[in-house]
Protein backbone atom coordinates (compact mmCIF):
# COMPACT_ATOMS: atom_id res chain seq x y z
CA UNK A 1 0.00 0.00 0.00
CA UNK A 2 2.65 2.42 1.06
CA UNK A 3 4.98 1.82 -1.87
CA UNK A 4 2.02 1.79 -4.24
CA UNK A 5 0.76 5.25 -3.28
CA UNK A 6 4.14 6.94 -3.52
CA UNK A 7 4.80 5.03 -6.74
CA UNK A 8 1.55 6.39 -8.16
CA UNK A 9 2.51 9.93 -7.16
CA UNK A 10 5.94 9.46 -8.73
CA UNK A 11 4.28 8.30 -11.93
CA UNK A 12 2.12 11.42 -11.82
CA UNK A 13 5.25 13.54 -11.57
CA UNK A 14 6.62 11.77 -14.65
CA UNK A 15 3.39 12.38 -16.58
CA UNK A 16 3.46 16.07 -15.63
CA UNK A 17 7.11 16.33 -16.59
CA UNK A 18 6.44 14.59 -19.90
CA UNK A 19 3.55 16.92 -20.74
CA UNK A 20 5.58 20.03 -19.99
CA UNK A 21 8.53 18.61 -21.92
CA UNK A 22 6.25 18.05 -24.92
CA UNK A 23 4.96 21.60 -24.49
CA UNK A 24 8.55 22.89 -24.49
CA UNK A 25 9.54 20.90 -27.56
CA UNK A 26 6.45 21.42 -29.71
CA UNK A 27 4.29 24.25 -28.41
CA UNK A 28 6.76 26.99 -27.44
CA UNK A 29 8.55 27.16 -30.80
CA UNK A 30 5.20 27.01 -32.59
CA UNK A 31 3.73 29.81 -30.45
CA UNK A 32 6.75 32.04 -30.86
CA UNK A 33 6.65 31.52 -34.62
CA UNK A 34 2.89 31.86 -34.87
CA UNK A 35 2.67 35.20 -33.03
CA UNK A 36 4.59 37.00 -35.77
CA UNK A 37 2.48 35.39 -38.51
CA UNK A 38 -0.87 36.00 -36.83
CA UNK A 39 -0.19 39.58 -35.75
CA UNK A 40 2.73 41.09 -37.71
CA UNK A 41 2.75 44.10 -35.38
CA UNK A 42 3.65 41.78 -32.48
CA UNK A 43 6.53 40.06 -34.30
CA UNK A 44 8.92 41.58 -31.76
CA UNK A 45 7.48 39.30 -29.09
CA UNK A 46 8.92 36.26 -30.83
CA UNK A 47 12.12 36.05 -28.77
CA UNK A 48 10.67 37.06 -25.37
CA UNK A 49 8.13 34.24 -25.71
CA UNK A 50 10.81 31.78 -26.74
CA UNK A 51 13.26 32.67 -23.95
CA UNK A 52 10.61 33.26 -21.28
CA UNK A 53 8.88 29.99 -22.03
CA UNK A 54 12.03 27.97 -21.55
CA UNK A 55 13.10 29.97 -18.51
CA UNK A 56 9.89 29.15 -16.61
CA UNK A 57 10.37 25.48 -17.46
CA UNK A 58 13.67 25.38 -15.50
CA UNK A 59 12.24 26.01 -11.99
CA UNK A 60 9.33 23.76 -12.86
CA UNK A 61 11.60 20.81 -13.58
CA UNK A 62 13.77 21.51 -10.54
CA UNK A 63 10.66 21.55 -8.33
CA UNK A 64 9.44 18.33 -9.94
CA UNK A 65 12.77 16.67 -9.27
CA UNK A 66 12.72 17.84 -5.65
CA UNK A 67 9.18 16.51 -5.22
CA UNK A 68 10.41 13.19 -6.61
CA UNK A 69 13.24 13.18 -4.08
CA UNK A 70 10.77 14.01 -1.32
CA UNK A 71 8.63 11.01 -2.26
CA UNK A 72 11.73 8.81 -2.12
CA UNK A 73 12.45 10.07 1.42
CA UNK A 74 8.87 9.26 2.40
CA UNK A 75 9.40 5.77 0.96
CA UNK A 76 12.47 5.32 3.11
CA UNK A 77 10.61 6.55 6.19
CA UNK A 78 12.89 9.56 6.40
CA UNK A 79 10.20 12.17 5.72
CA UNK A 80 11.27 14.09 8.81
CA UNK A 81 14.89 14.68 7.97
CA UNK A 82 17.14 17.56 7.03
CA UNK A 83 17.06 16.26 3.46
CA UNK A 84 13.32 16.66 3.07
CA UNK A 85 13.42 20.10 4.66
CA UNK A 86 16.02 20.98 2.04
CA UNK A 87 13.85 19.60 -0.78
CA UNK A 88 10.84 21.59 0.45
CA UNK A 89 12.97 24.71 0.59
CA UNK A 90 13.95 24.26 -3.06
CA UNK A 91 10.30 23.70 -4.02
CA UNK A 92 9.42 26.93 -2.23
CA UNK A 93 12.10 28.90 -4.07
CA UNK A 94 11.10 27.36 -7.41
CA UNK A 95 7.46 28.27 -6.84
CA UNK A 96 8.40 31.87 -6.07
CA UNK A 97 10.69 32.01 -9.11
CA UNK A 98 7.95 30.68 -11.40
CA UNK A 99 5.43 33.21 -10.12
CA UNK A 100 7.90 36.07 -10.67
CA UNK A 101 8.70 34.85 -14.18
CA UNK A 102 5.01 34.50 -15.08
CA UNK A 103 4.21 37.94 -13.71
CA UNK A 104 7.14 39.34 -15.68
CA UNK A 105 5.65 37.67 -18.76
CA UNK A 106 2.22 39.21 -18.23
CA UNK A 107 2.93 42.24 -20.47
CA UNK A 108 3.50 39.83 -23.37
CA UNK A 109 0.22 38.08 -22.66
CA UNK A 110 -1.64 41.37 -22.30
CA UNK A 111 -0.47 42.50 -25.74
CA UNK A 112 -1.53 39.20 -27.30
CA UNK A 113 -4.87 39.27 -25.48
CA UNK A 114 -5.52 42.78 -26.79
CA UNK A 115 -4.54 41.83 -30.33
CA UNK A 116 -6.79 38.78 -30.15
CA UNK A 117 -9.56 40.68 -28.32
CA UNK A 118 -9.65 37.96 -25.68
CA UNK A 119 -9.53 39.53 -22.22
CA UNK A 120 -10.14 36.12 -20.64
CA UNK A 121 -6.57 35.17 -21.51
CA UNK A 122 -5.32 37.73 -18.97
CA UNK A 123 -7.38 36.10 -16.21
CA UNK A 124 -6.11 32.65 -17.11
CA UNK A 125 -2.57 34.03 -17.15
CA UNK A 126 -3.04 35.51 -13.68
CA UNK A 127 -4.35 32.16 -12.41
CA UNK A 128 -1.25 30.51 -13.87
CA UNK A 129 0.97 33.12 -12.24
CA UNK A 130 -0.59 32.69 -8.80
CA UNK A 131 -0.71 28.90 -8.68
CA UNK A 132 3.08 28.55 -8.07
CA UNK A 133 2.72 31.04 -5.20
CA UNK A 134 0.11 28.79 -3.59
CA UNK A 135 2.45 25.84 -4.03
CA UNK A 136 5.33 27.85 -2.56
CA UNK A 137 3.32 28.87 0.52
CA UNK A 138 2.19 25.28 1.00
CA UNK A 139 5.79 24.07 0.71
CA UNK A 140 6.85 26.71 3.26
CA UNK A 141 4.28 25.42 5.77
CA UNK A 142 5.33 21.81 5.17
CA UNK A 143 8.94 22.86 5.65
CA UNK A 144 8.07 24.39 9.02
CA UNK A 145 6.13 21.29 10.02
CA UNK A 146 8.94 18.95 9.01
CA UNK A 147 11.36 21.11 11.01
CA UNK A 148 9.02 20.90 14.00
CA UNK A 149 8.81 17.14 13.73
CA UNK A 150 12.58 16.86 13.52
CA UNK A 151 12.91 18.90 16.70
CA UNK A 152 10.37 16.71 18.49
CA UNK A 153 12.13 13.60 17.27
CA UNK A 154 15.58 14.70 18.36
CA UNK A 155 14.15 15.68 21.74
CA UNK A 156 12.75 12.19 21.90
CA UNK A 157 16.12 10.65 21.10
CA UNK A 158 17.77 12.72 23.83
CA UNK A 159 15.29 11.60 26.44
CA UNK A 160 15.67 7.97 25.47
Amino acid sequence: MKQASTFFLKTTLFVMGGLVLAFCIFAIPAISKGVGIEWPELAGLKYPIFIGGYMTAIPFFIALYQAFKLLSYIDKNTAFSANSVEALKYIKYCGIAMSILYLAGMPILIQIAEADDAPGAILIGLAFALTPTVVAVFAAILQKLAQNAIDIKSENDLVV
Partner: protein
Amino acid sequence: MKQGSIIFLKIVIVFIVIVALGGMIRFPLTEGRAVNLDLFSIYWDPFIVYMYIASIPFFVGLYQAFKLLGYIGQNKVFSLSSAKALRTIKYCAIMQSILIVMAILYIRTSHNVDDDPAGFIAIGILATFISVVIATAASVFERILQNAANIKSENNLTA
Protein backbone atom coordinates in the same frame (compact mmCIF):
# COMPACT_ATOMS: atom_id res chain seq x y z
CA MET B 1 5.56 34.26 8.68
CA LYS B 2 3.77 31.02 9.43
CA GLN B 3 0.50 32.65 10.46
CA GLY B 4 0.65 34.84 7.37
CA SER B 5 1.08 31.90 5.04
CA ILE B 6 -1.77 30.01 6.71
CA ILE B 7 -4.07 33.00 6.30
CA PHE B 8 -3.00 33.22 2.65
CA LEU B 9 -3.91 29.58 2.02
CA LYS B 10 -7.22 30.04 3.85
CA ILE B 11 -8.02 32.99 1.60
CA VAL B 12 -7.16 30.84 -1.43
CA ILE B 13 -9.62 28.17 -0.24
CA VAL B 14 -12.38 30.73 0.32
CA PHE B 15 -11.64 32.19 -3.11
CA ILE B 16 -11.93 28.73 -4.73
CA VAL B 17 -15.27 28.19 -2.97
CA ILE B 18 -16.62 31.56 -4.15
CA VAL B 19 -15.49 30.99 -7.75
CA ALA B 20 -16.86 27.44 -7.83
CA LEU B 21 -20.21 28.43 -6.29
CA GLY B 22 -20.51 31.46 -8.56
CA GLY B 23 -19.76 29.36 -11.61
CA MET B 24 -22.20 26.66 -10.58
CA ILE B 25 -25.02 29.15 -10.00
CA ARG B 26 -24.37 31.20 -13.13
CA PHE B 27 -23.61 28.42 -15.59
CA PRO B 28 -27.17 27.03 -16.01
CA LEU B 29 -28.43 30.54 -16.83
CA THR B 30 -26.02 30.85 -19.75
CA GLU B 31 -27.08 27.56 -21.33
CA GLY B 32 -28.97 27.82 -24.61
CA ARG B 33 -31.95 25.93 -23.24
CA ALA B 34 -32.38 28.52 -20.50
CA VAL B 35 -33.72 31.13 -22.93
CA ASN B 36 -37.38 30.15 -22.80
CA LEU B 37 -37.56 28.66 -19.33
CA ASP B 38 -38.58 30.07 -15.99
CA LEU B 39 -36.06 30.04 -13.19
CA PHE B 40 -37.31 26.83 -11.58
CA SER B 41 -37.20 24.80 -14.80
CA ILE B 42 -33.72 26.05 -15.56
CA TYR B 43 -32.30 24.58 -12.37
CA TRP B 44 -34.61 21.57 -12.22
CA ASP B 45 -32.70 19.60 -14.83
CA PRO B 46 -31.57 16.12 -13.75
CA PHE B 47 -27.98 16.70 -14.77
CA ILE B 48 -27.76 20.11 -13.13
CA VAL B 49 -29.22 18.69 -9.93
CA TYR B 50 -26.68 15.88 -10.19
CA MET B 51 -23.93 18.47 -10.58
CA TYR B 52 -25.00 20.20 -7.36
CA ILE B 53 -25.14 16.93 -5.45
CA ALA B 54 -21.83 15.74 -6.89
CA SER B 55 -20.15 18.96 -5.78
CA ILE B 56 -20.79 18.17 -2.09
CA PRO B 57 -17.59 16.11 -1.60
CA PHE B 58 -15.63 18.93 -3.24
CA PHE B 59 -16.84 21.46 -0.70
CA VAL B 60 -16.53 19.04 2.22
CA GLY B 61 -12.93 18.41 1.16
CA LEU B 62 -12.23 22.14 1.01
CA TYR B 63 -13.80 22.60 4.44
CA GLN B 64 -11.58 19.85 5.84
CA ALA B 65 -8.52 21.50 4.29
CA PHE B 66 -9.62 24.75 5.94
CA LYS B 67 -9.89 22.95 9.28
CA LEU B 68 -6.48 21.37 8.74
CA LEU B 69 -4.96 24.82 8.22
CA GLY B 70 -6.57 25.83 11.50
CA TYR B 71 -4.88 22.91 13.28
CA ILE B 72 -1.55 23.90 11.75
CA GLY B 73 -2.06 27.44 13.02
CA GLN B 74 -2.75 26.16 16.53
CA ASN B 75 0.33 23.92 16.40
CA LYS B 76 -1.91 20.88 16.71
CA VAL B 77 -1.07 19.37 13.36
CA PHE B 78 0.45 16.16 14.75
CA SER B 79 -2.80 15.04 16.27
CA LEU B 80 -5.59 12.59 15.64
CA SER B 81 -7.98 15.34 14.55
CA SER B 82 -5.76 16.44 11.69
CA ALA B 83 -5.20 12.82 10.64
CA LYS B 84 -8.99 12.50 10.61
CA ALA B 85 -9.36 15.63 8.46
CA LEU B 86 -6.89 14.15 5.97
CA ARG B 87 -8.79 10.87 5.97
CA THR B 88 -12.01 12.74 5.19
CA ILE B 89 -10.23 14.58 2.36
CA LYS B 90 -9.11 11.22 1.02
CA TYR B 91 -12.64 9.78 1.06
CA CYS B 92 -14.05 12.95 -0.47
CA ALA B 93 -11.52 12.80 -3.31
CA ILE B 94 -12.28 9.13 -3.98
CA MET B 95 -16.01 9.83 -3.99
CA GLN B 96 -15.51 12.85 -6.22
CA SER B 97 -13.63 10.82 -8.81
CA ILE B 98 -16.40 8.18 -8.85
CA LEU B 99 -19.07 10.86 -9.23
CA ILE B 100 -17.20 12.47 -12.13
CA VAL B 101 -16.76 9.12 -13.86
CA MET B 102 -20.51 8.54 -13.52
CA ALA B 103 -21.20 11.93 -15.08
CA ILE B 104 -18.84 11.09 -17.94
CA LEU B 105 -20.60 7.77 -18.54
CA TYR B 106 -24.00 9.51 -18.50
CA ILE B 107 -22.90 12.15 -21.03
CA ARG B 108 -21.16 9.50 -23.12
CA THR B 109 -24.27 7.32 -23.42
CA SER B 110 -27.00 9.94 -23.65
CA HIS B 111 -25.60 12.98 -25.43
CA ASN B 112 -27.42 14.47 -28.40
CA VAL B 113 -26.23 12.97 -31.69
CA ASP B 114 -25.36 16.46 -32.93
CA ASP B 115 -23.22 17.22 -29.90
CA ASP B 116 -19.60 16.28 -29.56
CA PRO B 117 -18.89 15.46 -25.91
CA ALA B 118 -15.12 15.08 -26.45
CA GLY B 119 -14.29 18.32 -24.61
CA PHE B 120 -16.45 17.48 -21.62
CA ILE B 121 -15.01 13.99 -21.43
CA ALA B 122 -11.43 15.24 -21.66
CA ILE B 123 -11.97 17.72 -18.83
CA GLY B 124 -13.79 15.03 -16.85
CA ILE B 125 -10.91 12.59 -17.22
CA LEU B 126 -8.47 15.30 -16.14
CA ALA B 127 -10.63 16.15 -13.10
CA THR B 128 -10.89 12.46 -12.20
CA PHE B 129 -7.14 12.12 -12.44
CA ILE B 130 -6.61 15.17 -10.21
CA SER B 131 -9.06 13.75 -7.64
CA VAL B 132 -7.18 10.45 -7.56
CA VAL B 133 -3.86 12.29 -7.13
CA ILE B 134 -5.32 14.32 -4.25
CA ALA B 135 -6.66 11.15 -2.62
CA THR B 136 -3.25 9.49 -2.86
CA ALA B 137 -1.39 12.54 -1.56
CA ALA B 138 -3.85 12.83 1.34
CA SER B 139 -3.30 9.19 2.28
CA VAL B 140 0.49 9.66 2.18
CA PHE B 141 0.19 12.76 4.39
CA GLU B 142 -2.19 10.94 6.71
CA ARG B 143 0.35 8.17 7.26
CA ILE B 144 3.18 10.63 7.85
CA LEU B 145 1.09 12.55 10.36
CA GLN B 146 0.15 9.34 12.11
CA ASN B 147 3.84 8.50 12.39
CA ALA B 148 4.66 11.89 13.82
CA ALA B 149 1.75 11.73 16.25
CA ASN B 150 3.03 8.37 17.48
CA ILE B 151 6.54 9.76 17.96
CA LYS B 152 5.10 12.69 19.85
CA SER B 153 2.98 10.58 22.19
CA GLU B 154 5.99 8.38 22.83
CA ASN B 155 7.83 11.55 23.69
CA ASN B 156 5.15 12.62 26.14
CA LEU B 157 5.19 9.25 27.80
CA THR B 158 8.91 9.28 28.42
CA ALA B 159 9.02 12.89 29.51
